[in-house]
């Protein structure tokens, strides 16, 4: 029973890491697009859109930071699927 719980928890951890990775990659792609748009806007002298673009990039960075630093459901006592973690801590 305990082994089964551990396996489920392990699978959950892997899924969470995968989800985290996918989100980070998507955010990075969005930021890359924002950087390209910023360069385009600056050279075109569209100064009014520069600030919103930088703010959007900053928000993406904060989300990235929060995903890496603070979003850690796998390190809690309960796993993301609600199971109590075993004595593996």
């Amino acid at each position, binding site marked *: 029973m305990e082994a089964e719980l551990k396996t489920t928890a392990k699978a959950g951890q892997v899924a969470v*890491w*995968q989800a*985290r*990775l996918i989100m*980070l*990659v998507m*955010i*990075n792609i969005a*930021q*890359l697009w*924002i*950087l390209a748009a*910023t*360069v*385009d*806007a*600056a*050279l*075109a*002298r*569209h*100064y*009014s*859109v*520069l*600030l919103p*673009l*930088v703010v959007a*990039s*900053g928000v*993406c*960075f904060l989300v*990235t*930071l929060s*995903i*890496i630093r603070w979003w850690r459901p796998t390190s809690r006592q309960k796993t993301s699927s609600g199971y109590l973690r075993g004595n593996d801590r």
Partner: protein
Amino acid sequence: MSSSKNISETIKRVLSDESDVREATAPFQAEFPYERDEEAQVTRREFCNFLGLTSAALFFGAAGFATKAALDAREEVSVSAAHIGGAETLALNSSLNFSYPTERDSAILIRTADGAYHAYGQKCTHLSCPVYYSRDHQRLECPCHEGAFDVATGDVLYGPPPRALDVIEVEVRDGQVWATGRNTSTPKDGG
């Protein structure tokens, strides 16, 4: 003689394949355990951290670029008239490169087939590639992304550039060609 033979055999073994490497370096492996497979593996955590650093770099890149563009827009360059050397002897339907208003600002002077002079900043307004004068098509062309500008007005004819070229005002004084000012164009949608 035998020692050199041993060395060559050892080298041959080392270069043969991975298992031989481990066998040949066994004494060192005992003191410095090192697994190549583990070394080459990138964990999810490491990759996440790398993505985080990339995100930071992209943010600071965008912020830096926007800041520099905003500062450049506020900077006022003192413009004074400057003689364009060699312009008087410029053949019809040809161009001449010069710098104006500072040495860092490359510009292009064109003498059209009717003898009129037109000058523009040489940076394409798309991604700053230098534009050149195409004699065959009688227009300014950007080789990077195939943009083109009207030779008489500097307006965009086609391609990705979002605005016209910066116009340099030209005057002919006593048979000499002078650049007297530089007008920066703005996007047509008013942004």
